[in-house]
């Protein structure tokens, strides 16, 4: 399918954010000057699980510069608890106090807050808060957590099982019985954390004269946060404004109202003085939000050709101690989309989400990250077991164009995706036969090369119908407004929450394309709840499809009124006028010869605002438009990844020799931004597979307490990525946008691991857990003769 001809979409545009960010004139949270603001510092539990016997704040209160020291008891008077009770079968409701009063549940759990004139003094005073704890037995393992006798993390959650969802589709048991072979495989992903380079923080101002709270905070979901904050502070929603400034990354971490921000806001109101908070990096690692730490086991029934007959998935996730986010969210998606690009009708899953005494989870870029590794890894396991070529096995199972639209076992409709095309593209790009020859020759010389594939079908944008079907409260729509000012420039807004993706330019392009003006004439306003329309914010990869889509459609709506006014002015038929780069063009009826009409957008705008009686009948003054857009229940994009590695068996070290990806994400709002997102997602996936690990010991102590312990990939560890663009539009979404931003993580986890396992073939060893460290590789190889 060919791409529609766009003037601004699918074209590279330099980012308008760059000038301010490159020159140090960005405006991040801490750059905002608030005279007289006090600084907060939290006192945190050193224990993973303990009863709070007493908190003595006297010495801290008397310390230099201190204005207040508060605990859970104080906060209980000023705020409500969080009740997280999504009406989803299999999910247990939980309630979270603003600050714990009785029991702390993880190392780093905040128990008190010091407010002082600067952070240095606040930290000094925090050391003087005396907390008497009675340590309790912690549970730090999601297997032991479900065993009888394990410590209970949350009094409302029996057996630490906060969510248990099961489903059977088709007849998997029957097919297991009849199978030629059953192949088992397991996949274990370690605990990680989002690690934005800018940590969490906020600044709260209470206007006592107006009874109004303003919270400055980097947040992916400004309106949702505002709604939440108002409830927690017992204010009306109109008494709260949330303003998100430039944000230094989020990746899913800055997506909930955490306790620290709530405390800061409550204190600003109580003290009638602005209060600000900057989380330091140690706090961010220990107590912001964690993610991943999931385990999947598959049992695949196959025929003698390696064609899948049925699949059973057992999945478990360690969610930590607190739910600031619905606990079943990610697992629901993994289980739902697991089959991805492959044919599967008989499928059963069992997903358990478990609480432990660790920092609670939030989504992290690609919360369903494990999905494609599991699916493609299962196919590789099938290939190994049946001694078939892994590329052949994929071909035999992959959805072909003739199969589409394809309804999966779970009822998902997959259409307008191109997995077999992207797969063949990377197979060709890496010259598969040549690789096998090189691999053979290398082995003869004692060198071990490996090649791994992974094809991703990425769910990017969830429409409201998806949430309804899943029983999740929430909408998938997005809202936009566009105002053409009297001078002809355009202001526009959409309810997204950017955190560095560079929305301003592609969103301006969406408006420009729909309306008929140059993007440079469009200003995009984001992140301020008083200005932006009520939207669902940024998460997953919805911003392009839902946000860009809403703006594009709203711009088309604006264009229709502009052109109707122009046609009336020119006494022409509606069909015979158009606007390009704000110039109204006209053609003689019946001809195709467009000429400048003498009118420009500014003329239309001035008439609409200042001379409305000249408007055509039925048209109201002004040029201000609002639109909401609910995308299809689900939109997918797809990509195939191929990764070549060399393994040094002597030390267990890996080198990524080559990384190729063929991708299809439909219409691109801005190809430059899309490419950057792809780089970033793949980088995060490779970093996770190789280096990252939030490592708790058995007593619940977080051993990865600093950036010297929690490792992320640097420029020397990451390969140069070769991207093959293969974009085909989606026929149902606005402008054919599919979205992307997370699939890169999924593909990286899978292709890298599969490559390592390909390199390990001569040793008969298989890696099934992350991170893939030299130590782990050596452990696998130890004792196996490498000659």
């Amino acid at each position: 399918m060919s791409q529609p001809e766009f003037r601004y979409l699918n074209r590279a545009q330099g980012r308008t954010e760059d000038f301010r960010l490159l020159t140090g004139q960005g405006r991040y949270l801490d750059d905002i000057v608030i005279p007289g603001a006090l600084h907060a510092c939290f006192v945190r539990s050193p224990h993973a699980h303990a009863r709070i016997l007493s908190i003595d704040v006297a010495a801290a209160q008397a310390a230099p510069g201190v204005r207040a020291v508060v605990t859970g008891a104080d906060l209980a008077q000023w705020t409500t608890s969080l009740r997280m009770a999504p009406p989803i079968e299999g999910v247990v409701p939980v309630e979270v106090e603003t600050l714990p009063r009785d029991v702390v549940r993880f190392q780093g759990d905040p128990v008190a807050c010091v407010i002082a004139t600067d952070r240095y003094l606040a930290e000094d005073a925090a050391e003087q808060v005396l907390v008497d704890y009675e340590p309790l037995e912690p549970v730090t393992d999601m297997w032991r957590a479900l065993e009888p006798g394990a410590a209970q993390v949350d009094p409302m959650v029996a057996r630490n099982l906060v969510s248990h969802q099961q489903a059977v589709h088709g007849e998997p048991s029957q097919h297991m019985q009849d199978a030629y072979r059953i192949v088992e495989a397991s996949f274990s992903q370690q605990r990680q954390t989002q690690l934005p380079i800018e940590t969490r923080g906020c600044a709260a101002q209470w206007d006592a004269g107006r009874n109004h709270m303003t919270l400055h905070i980097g947040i992916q979901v400004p309106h949702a946060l505002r709604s939440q904050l108002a409830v927690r502070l017992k204010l009306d929603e109109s008494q709260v404004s949330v303003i998100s400034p430039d944000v230094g990354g989020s990746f899913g971490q800055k997506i909930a109202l955490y306790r620290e921000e709530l405390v800061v806001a409550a204190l600003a109101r109580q003290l009638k003085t602005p209060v600000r908070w900057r989380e330091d990096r140690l706090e961010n690692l220990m107590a912001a939000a964690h993610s991943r730490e999931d385990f999947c086991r598959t049992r695949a029934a196959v025929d003698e050709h390696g064609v899948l007959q049925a699949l059973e998935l057992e999945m478990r996730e360690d969610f930590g101690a607190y739910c600031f986010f619905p606990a079943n969210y990610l697992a629901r998606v993994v289980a739902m989309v697991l089959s991805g690009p492959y044919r599967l009708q008989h499928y059963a899953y069992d997903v358990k989400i478990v609480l432990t005494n660790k920092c609670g989870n939030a989504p992290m870029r690609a919360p369903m990250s494990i999905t494609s590794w599991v699916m493609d890894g299962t196919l590789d396991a099938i290939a190994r077991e049946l001694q078939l070529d892994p590329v052949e096995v994929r071909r035999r199972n992959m959805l072909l164009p003739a199969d589409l639209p394809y309804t999966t076992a779970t009822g998902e409709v997959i259409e307008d995706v191109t997995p077999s095309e992207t797969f063949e593209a990377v197979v060709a790009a890496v010259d598969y036969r040549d690789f096998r020859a090189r691999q053979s020759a290398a082995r003869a010389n004692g060198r071990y090369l490996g090649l791994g594939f992974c094809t991703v079908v990425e769910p990017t944008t969830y429409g409201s119908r998806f949430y309804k079907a899943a029983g999740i409260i929430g909408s998938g729509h997005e809202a936009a407004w566009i105002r053409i000012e009297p001078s002809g420039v355009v202001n526009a807004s959409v309810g997204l929450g950017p955190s560095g993706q560079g929305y301003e330019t592609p969103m301006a392009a969406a408006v420009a394309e729909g309306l008929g003006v140059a993007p440079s004439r469009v200003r995009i306003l984001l992140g301020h709840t008083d200005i932006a329309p009520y939207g669902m914010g940024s998460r997953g990869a919805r911003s392009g499809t839902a946000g860009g889509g809403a703006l594009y459609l709203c711009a088309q709506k604006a264009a229709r009124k502009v052109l109707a006014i122009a046609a009336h002015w020119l006494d022409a038929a509606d069909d015979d006028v158009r606007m390009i780069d704000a110039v109204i063009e006209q053609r003689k009826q019946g001809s195709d010869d467009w000429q400048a009409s003498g009118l420009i957008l500014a003329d239309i705008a001035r008439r609409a605002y200042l001379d409305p009686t000249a408007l055509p009948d039925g048209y109201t003054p002004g040029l201000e438009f609002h639109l909401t857009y609910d995308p299809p229940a689900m939109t997918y994009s797809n990509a195939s990844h191929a990764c070549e590695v060399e393994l040094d068996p002597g030390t267990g070290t890996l080198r990524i020799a080559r990384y190729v990806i063929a991708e299809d994400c439909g219409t691109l709002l801005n190809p430059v931004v899309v490419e950057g997102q792809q780089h970033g997602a793949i980088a995060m996936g490779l970093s996770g597979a190789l280096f990252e690990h939030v490592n708790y010991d058995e007593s619940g102590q977080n051993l990865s307490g600093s950036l010297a312990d929690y490792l992320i990939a640097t420029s020397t560890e990451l390969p140069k990525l070769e991207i093959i663009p293969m974009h085909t539009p989606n026929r149902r979404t606005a402008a054919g946008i599919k979205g992307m931003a997370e699939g890169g993580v999924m593909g990286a986890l899978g292709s890298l691991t599969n490559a390592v396992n390909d390199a390990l073939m001569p040793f008969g060893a298989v890696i099934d857990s992350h991170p893939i460290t030299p130590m782990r590789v050596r452990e696998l190889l130890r004792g196996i003769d490498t000659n």
Partner: protein
Amino acid sequence: MKPAAFDYHRPGSLADALSLLESFADDAKVIAGGQSLGPMMNMRLAQPQHLIDLNGLTELAGIRETADALVIGAMTRHHDVATSAIVRAACPLLADAVATVGHYAIRQRGTLGGSLVHADPAAQIPLAAVTLGATVEIAGARGTREAQAADFIESVMTTDLAAHEMVTAVRFPKSGVAQGHGFEIMTRRHGDFAIVACAVAIELDGDIIRALRIGLGGVSDKPVLLEQLAAQFCGEARHADLAQRIGAAAAAAIDPEDSAEISSTFRREVALVLTRRAVEQALGRAGH
């Protein structure tokens, strides 16, 4: 993560610095590059009452060449050591080792003396100093003294410096023309602290090993100089599996501890491979 309060002193001369150390002793810490001490203080793992800033002591920075040694001032920055033509010519093992310390920006501030006194068991400069038989020049208000690097470094992050003393310079023997060197390091990522590091200096007489110095970092509580092993291989001729045999012998000669993430077996395995590679490097360079 803000440091605890301290009194700040910036002496303008070595004598002033020593006088401050004499007065404040255990209540004081000196700060050189700050690349190791800074993080510890920001995390409040170190909370000295007095901080003595050595950055005004320009007389302690610099590389001086004598007939048989390189005298490197304690305040010489890693970057200057790593890029110095003098060091490259006279002590290339040191240049190679220092070039791998941290990252470019870290090396602009970090100092030779600072790294040596920090005494991380896997660090490059302590390893190079021990392997090359460097001499540490120490000063206090009560006088000066010298110590061999291998004696100076006592254990993890521990040296024999008294509270009133500081290192002023480190003397490295110059490598002979017939010497070859090798340096290998294994890190999780580029620029990280070493898991294991190996430094080798070989002198050949034709094809015969005349002198051999092998040091390993990260396998004990301080850098290990494998003297017995070296003696064992002296007099041997260069041959195909010499490097492998030396590597195997090195792995057998050490007794690393198990740590949470890294087993002693792993360190041994890596030590074998790194030693083999370092010896191969050194053999390749020796005699040229």
